């Protein structure tokens, strides 16, 4: 199996078709992350995964091969999630009383989704990355471009809310 970094290098030098391997390799991972962050909203999870792949291709030249591609991709997906949630909130804040209501298609482990319900977007991201994907705190800080102390304090606040 070719390494991610090698595929990135080949994508940049030989063309986008090599990126297809990376898409297939991380499609489940990004979709799963999206499902967990959106509490099982399949449509939003698919949008997150799609946008994350598109953005990662656009900024592929800026990828630092010293870092793990998966971590870099996770950071992009989290940013896409935050952008989408912001857009969703803007849409919901509009007065749409007369519009037919839209019910998202929810799937997955409802216990987990109910568990993280009281958390805000930031806390959901940190909690999921730390306790489901078992990332180290310094890794999370690195991939989200946040200070280590900030991540630690947000995580402890999230845990306080849940216990």
């Amino acid at each position: 199996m070719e390494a991610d970094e090698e595929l990135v290098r080949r994508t940049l030098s030989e063309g986008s078709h090599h990126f297809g391997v990376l898409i297939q390799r991380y499609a489940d991972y990004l979709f799963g992350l999206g499902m967990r962050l959106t509490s099982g909203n399949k449509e939003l999870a698919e949008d997150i995964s799609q946008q994350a792949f598109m953005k990662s291709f656009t900024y592929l030249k800026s990828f630092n091969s010293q870092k793990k591609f998966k971590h870099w991709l996770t950071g992009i997906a989290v940013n896409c999630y935050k952008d989408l949630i912001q857009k969703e909130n803007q849409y919901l804040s509009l007065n749409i009383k007369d519009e037919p209501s839209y019910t998202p298609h929810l799937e997955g482990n409802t216990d987990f989704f109910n568990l993280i319900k009281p958390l805000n977007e930031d806390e959901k991201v940190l909690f999921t990355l730390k306790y489901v994907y078992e990332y180290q705190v310094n890794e999370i800080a690195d991939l989200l471009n946040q200070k280590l102390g900030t991540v630690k304090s947000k995580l402890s606040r999230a845990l306080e809310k849940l216990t």
Partner: protein
Amino acid sequence: MNQLETILEKEKGTSYPQRNKELFSFYILTLINQEQASRKLKRKLWISLLLITAGLFFLLSPISEMMNYFILNLSNIDTVDIFIMAAVSYGFLFVLMVLLKKRIAILS
């Protein structure tokens, strides 16, 4: 705390597979190629616009001189010259129209 751990363990064991990964990958690559093509087209359009502007600048700069010459020599102008000028202009316009039609046919 125990309940939290149980839920987390259950969640770790849950998988969320992306349906039809090959199709998904193909779709993303198509979107990427589309975006690249549109970026290339925009770049080409900008370059064309720059070239046209530069060309117009070079063509239009001596126009006042030409107009002065035309106005001064209006009394001496020959009708044959006017017909020749009109024929050349219409001919040039016809060629431009044909080229434009061909370009539109290629793009569509």
